[in-house]
């Protein structure tokens, strides 16, 4: 590629802006065109279900990189711009207005879409899902209205988004019910001991939790959601219904262009797709692991690290994403931090005080540490990150012993020198 080449990035979220920035760090000197379909410059999504939802802050507070940064990095940012198709033969993208843009290399960072509730009434007004700034604003407004009118916020889904929204609803003074189809909270990603801790936390804050609650219908009144009916015939009156039942990768453009996709654009550990001219990063991807399994991660870290890999890949270099995945959730004054992937665990030990709560759950498979969930135990989380990144294995007995120093397993570089 010469300096007249243009790299087009579809999607101006966390992954898209990271690719753009990393391209400059990789020494790319040509044109970078960053296409976003929202009317905002790149912004952070995690606060949309956390602090920002509660405080209702300014949009600028969410900014990932300010206008000065975009200018300095010589990124051409086009907001409100939708891509209709990718033409891989001609190396062009076609925009919604019919115009076409040539690319030397292309990056796909289209993110994900909230899964819709597949039941009658799901399209009523007052049935909301969370993805972007506009959604968070609408949800915040609906919660405040429910609080004022003494109506209940009904959340469908007891995962991260649903629980963070439930915590926000309580903070804003609205009554709240969470309907979870499975027998416990966050059941796909955490052990029962963690689920139970969060169930207690939400009950203490006055949230009504209903398990095994399969939603059958959203009952409307004059086109607005008025209640949620579950399979067992129960009706939950609702001032607003917030659906948080997961997201699907937005891989439509990639699939239509014939790129290999399977619930996400398939990439390797270097974020390369099945087309050598195209890389992909973030929520829209499914990563092929060395053992052949496909892993989908939905996190800031994944967007950032895959973004760096993608930028390197577009420059013909390999920069694999190898760090242990990490993630966090804030609910009330409790911070949940997770590192590693606990899927397939056969043994869990806990460290710390379950009643406070301030403890960590260590997940093992066949004696190997897979992942650690820390609840108000930042030091455990940070040390576990290092353990997993360095492949250092505490035994379950060591992990469970609060007197045992996990850090002692790491040959930490001892810093004595002062100054910078």
């Amino acid at each position: 590629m010469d300096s007249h080449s243009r790299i087009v990035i579809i999607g101006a979220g966390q992954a898209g802006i990271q690719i753009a920035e990393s391209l400059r760090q990789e020494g790319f000197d040509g044109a970078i065109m960053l296409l976003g379909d929202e009317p905002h410059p790149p912004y952070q999504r995690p606060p949309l279900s956390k602090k920002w939802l509660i405080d209702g802050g300014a949009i600028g507070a969410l900014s990932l990189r300010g206008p000065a940064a975009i200018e300095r990095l010589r990124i051409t940012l086009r907001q409100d711009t939708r891509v209709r198709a990718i033409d891989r033969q001609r190396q062009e993208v076609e925009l919604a207005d019919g115009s076409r843009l040539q690319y030397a290399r292309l990056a796909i960072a289209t993110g994900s879409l909230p899964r819709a509730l597949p039941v009658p009434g799901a399209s009523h007004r007052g049935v909301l899902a969370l993805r972007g700034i506009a959604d968070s604003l609408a949800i915040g407004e609906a919660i405040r209205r429910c609080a004022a009118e003494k109506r209940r916020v009904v959340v469908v889904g007891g995962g991260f988004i649903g629980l963070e929204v439930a915590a926000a609803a309580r903070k804003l003074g609205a009554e709240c019910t969470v309907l979870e189809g499975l027998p416990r909270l966050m059941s796909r990603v955490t052990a029962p001991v963690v689920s139970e801790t969060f169930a207690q936390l939400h009950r203490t804050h006055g949230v009504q939790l209903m398990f095994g609650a399969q939603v059958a219908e959203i009952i409307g009144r004059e086109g607005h959601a008025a209640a949620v009916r579950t399979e067992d015939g129960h009706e939950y009156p609702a001032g607003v219904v917030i659906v948080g039942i997961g997201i699907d990768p937005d891989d439509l453009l990639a699939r239509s262009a014939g790129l290999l996709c399977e619930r996400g654009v398939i990439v390797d550990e270097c974020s390369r797709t099945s087309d050598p001219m195209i890389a992909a990063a973030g929520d829209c991807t499914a990563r092929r692991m060395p053992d052949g399994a496909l892993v989908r991660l939905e996190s800031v870290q994944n967007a950032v690290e895959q973004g760096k890999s993608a930028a390197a890949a577009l420059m013909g270099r390999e920069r694999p994403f190898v760090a242990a995945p990490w993630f966090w959730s804030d609910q009330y004054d409790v911070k949940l931090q997770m590192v590693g992937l606990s899927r397939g665990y056969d043994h869990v030990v806990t460290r710390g005080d379950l009643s406070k709560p301030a403890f960590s759950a260590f997940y093992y498979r066949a004696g190997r540490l897979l992942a650690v969930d820390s609840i108000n135990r930042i030091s455990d989380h940070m040390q576990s990150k290092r353990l997993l990144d360095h492949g250092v294995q505490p035994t379950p007995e060591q992990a469970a012993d609060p007197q045992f120093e996990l850090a002692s397993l790491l040959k930490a570089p001892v810093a004595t020198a002062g100054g910078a």
Partner: protein
Amino acid sequence: MPRVTYIEPDGRAVTLQLKRGETLMRAAMDAGLDGIEAQCGGNCACATCHCYVEPEWLDKLPLPSEDEQFMLTNVAAERRPNSRLSCQLRAQDELDGLTVVFPERQS
């Protein structure tokens, strides 16, 4: 308006005017500095906004919270006695002239 100088990993110095109360992280992100990632957006959850504070300024800063101290145990670059997370440092008039140095790497 306090001015803060950031030293990028390649040695370049960039001086920014900060609003009172604005975090050093926020201003660095808005200016598009290279030496910072701030993946968690200022939630003290990722330790990727690590900086070294010029030693003569250290005692003018509020002490790190327990959370920040824990986060500092796992910064990607070398942890030094003057290591801080820039998302936890807020600009004040008495910090006018502060200099911080970004490490080689954040993650």
